[in-house]
């Protein structure tokens, strides 16, 4: 599905809506250039899951854990270029607890095929303008969730 997001607040709201369809087995990969709004979307999801604390960029620590109703793992592979991910211990969390992954590209060999992928792009490479958000899923369950999302979200299109 595709949506148009016009403000940071709307990106937060989309996250809050996404929180309603995501549960602890889900893996969500967030694609988009620096400053596209990936962390903002994660913040919205965390809020939607009842977490009121800080949601900051995990670029330095690679993973933040938010103690929401159920733990949320916020990964960032921005600094992992060229390295393998096996030793990061991700298998302890993947498909067991909700995992939200920024810069997932280097992890494509490790991440499950059923993962949901969210692509955030800038309209005409202009940061001042709206964001185009595309949501895709690899598995049957993910596609069912996207259908559910389509019922409850304002696509802005």
């Amino acid at each position, binding site marked *: 599905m595709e949506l148009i997001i016009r403000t940071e607040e709307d990106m937060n709201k989309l996250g809050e809506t996404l929180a309603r369809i995501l549960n602890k087995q889900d893996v969500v990969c967030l694609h988009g*250039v620096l400053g596209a709004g990936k962390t903002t979307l994660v913040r919205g999801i965390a809020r939607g899951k009842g977490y009121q604390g800080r949601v*900051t*960029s995990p670029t*330095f*620590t*690679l*993973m933040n854990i938010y103690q929401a109703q159920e733990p949320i793992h916020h990964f960032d592979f921005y600094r*992992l270029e060229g390295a393998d991910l096996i030793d990061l211990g991700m298998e302890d969390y993947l498909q067991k607890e909700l995992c939200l992954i920024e810069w997932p590209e280097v992890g494509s060999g490790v991440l499950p095929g059923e993962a949901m992928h969210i692509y955030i792009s800038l309209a005409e490479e202009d940061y001042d303008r709206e964001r185009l958000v595309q949501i895709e899923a690899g598995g049957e369950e993910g596609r069912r969730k996207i259908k559910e999302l389509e019922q409850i979200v304002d696509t802005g299109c």
Partner: protein
Amino acid sequence: MNDINILGIETSCDETAAAIVKNGQEILSNIVQSQISLHQKFGGVVPEVASRKHIETITAVTQEAFARAALTYQDIDAVAVTHRPGLIGALLVGLSFAKSLAYALGKPIIAVNHLHGHIYANFLENPGIAFPCVCLVVSGGHTSLLYMPSHHEYHLIGETRDDAAGEAFDKVARFLGLAYPGGPSVEKAALQGQPGLYKLPRIFLDRDDFEFSFSGLKTAVMNLWRKLEKSGEADVNNMAAEFQAALVEVLAEKTLHAAKKFQVKTVLLAGGVAANSLLRSTIAEKAQVQGMQVFYPSLSLCTDNAAMIAGRAYVQYMRRDFAGLDLNAYPGLLSL
């Protein structure tokens, strides 16, 4: 009283470091094996590479620390180690090494918070710093303002909502095609440029609190840069100068505002970004007008090192604040 020699071990990010400090004051040795050249080709720290290099170098670095201090293993009174925050794999290398050494020597082990170490770097060089103080910790992973009534009390009064200041330097440098680490390369480019020719926002400057946000500044740089490129006016030096000015102005104003609000006469800077000369001079000038004293560590003690860990550990040693051999490492801050 007998002299207390503490061995410090630090492996939280890209430096493998060991140091021996006497009585929390005198640096007998301070060895830092940097991995920066190794990570430069990746444009950032590669955690797995970091862990492996720590394993390869930690024994030699520690032996060198003893050799330079002209001490034997039995001459130390405790082993101190950074246990949080940092890259978990990297932290565990230092932690396992320190625990094994402490166990073998029958010495106590002291767990040191990396940020407390950064702050303590100021006390290593300036023993007479008066409390209470306000401290700005700025690095690749942190942007925090603290109120410290004493050596043992850290009150977090504000921090970043999104990206750390050092992270913004690194990301902006990479975007502009400048070298890693971003702090020195942006600073160098800024010297050739002029702030104010491009206009970037001073985010949260108008707010009456101590929160920071640098993600928006990063986005503003990229947005403006894209537009300048299209019109053919993009000058990397002028952009670096304006970016640095915007970031420093917010850090300096908030720090001084905190110092006034908490009525302190002492301001401390700590962490890798405290090596930035514009940040140092801006805060120093503003503080002087207010009659406050500003301290910042010398350049070699701003970036990650083990002397600050061994120094900080002395304060904990005097309180018998020892850890057990079940000590674990934690990537996050949890608490200050």
